[in-house]
């Protein structure tokens, strides 16, 4: 499997990997998974005044999935909730040159972010 330079950079850096402290004001989280595709993603966001102040991710998946989660966490920080809700995973896939057969896997990242808004306290979308 070949990986583009953007994928390699985000996979290497993992700048926003990890967890936010419990009890942080405005903390929301969401996760999604697809066991058949071997992918699980979790985001934790700190929302203040409708803005995503901090974003962290955890991921189990292929390099494209990990890099995409990393890229999305970076993208989320500083965005308004409205902008964040408009996340388009396909655009992230295009930037990371994700092979078409993996796009379905990366849509779980979009699901995980969406889950943050759905159940703000314990956001969770297990997918299938």
């Amino acid at each position, binding site marked *: 499997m070949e990986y583009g330079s953007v994928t390699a950079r985000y996979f290497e850096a993992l700048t926003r990997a*990890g*967890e936010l402290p419990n009890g942080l004001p405005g903390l929301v989280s969401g996760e999604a998974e697809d066991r058949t595709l071997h992918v699980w993603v979790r985001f934790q966001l700190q929302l203040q005044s409708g803005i995503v102040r901090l974003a962290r991710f*955890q991921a189990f*998946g292929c390099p494209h999935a990990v890099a995409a989660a990393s890229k999305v966490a970076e993208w989320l920080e500083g965005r308004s909730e409205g902008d964040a809700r408009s996340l388009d995973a396909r655009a992230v896939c295009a930037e990371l040159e994700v092979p078409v057969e993996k796009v379905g896997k990366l849509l779980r990242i979009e699901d995980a972010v969406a889950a943050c808004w759905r159940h703000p306290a314990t956001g969770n979308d297990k997918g299938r």
Partner: protein
Amino acid sequence: MSDADIYLDYAATSPVDPAVTAAMLECLQHEFGNPSSQHAAGRRARRLVEAARAAVAARVGAKPERLLFTSGATEANNLALQGVLRRRRKAPAHLVTSRIEHKSVLDTARALAAEGVEVTYVDADADGSVDPRRVAAAIRTDTALVSIMHVNNETGVIQDVNTIGALCRERGVPFHVDAAQSVGKLELELESAPIDLCSLTAHKICGPKGVGALYVAPHTALAAQLHGGEQERGLRAGTLATHQIVGMGRAYELADPEAEAPRLGLLRDRLWQELQAIPGVRQNGAPARRAAHVLNVTFPGIEGESLRFALRGVAASAGSACASDSPEASHVLTGMGLSDTLASSSLRFSVGRFTTEAEVVRAAATVAEAVHRLRSIAKSAPAWCSGSGF
């Protein structure tokens, strides 16, 4: 791969030994004759081919005239299976093989099944071995061939081909063995073994790619699969690749298991010793019945593709190189009972002639660092990511 990389994928292929390169270069530069030609250049090339055939035969305990040169073990496997089964085109035919064979056997079996051949796939045990009793139980009155590999390419597990072969002989069924991973690691004595067909290759033992051989025991009937010449007793048409064959012959001269296997076993064991510092690791395949060069390890909680990508500077593989483009988990490991997730969390390391102890120690440290890093970004992952919870 740069010179600084650590190559631990000898079961996929191996660097060509300088002595092999020298023999091939000499041939390429000075002996371009067609070995089938009757003039002096052709006769010289023929002598080189026959010398190589004798060297290969000596290494595997066979008479030289029992070996046919092919383009590799894949072609040899195809010739063995198709050559036997297609010869019985008009009669009902049945093939017995195992679920953990190399793709070149499984895909050929599938192609034959599409032509009407019935195929029985024998299960492997959890330790990666194929029980000879299961093979015997699968043999029927119309069984035309049994095909079981000698050393599994993903786990290194050695199959009991002598017992399986003896059971086949009792039932009068020809027995084919894919020995692509055995040469240089195990002694082979094909002439005295209950084996009728045996596939060999050069590139796993520091020889060139693109050349292999099929051992055919006396009275084993095969239908040619390539047409267009009388080379190799009419069973494998095509101009013989003299330089490749010369390289294979030299590689087989050098591949002495008595000299190499103990050192490879020590390297493999050292690698495992180092990797055991990683929590939760487990090795796949019966440790007491493995060839010296292969170590297959599962790293629970790690997605295999990410682990391979994170292992910058260490060349290891998910399993068979011939299946590495497939997103599916190893059929060998799932055939041994591992879940898809655990099979996907596994790596095959394989050492060889030019591997050093310092390299395996350094590789283990790289693996440990990568595993730690990937686990650290999935601390809250559900249980199925670690192979449980299904």
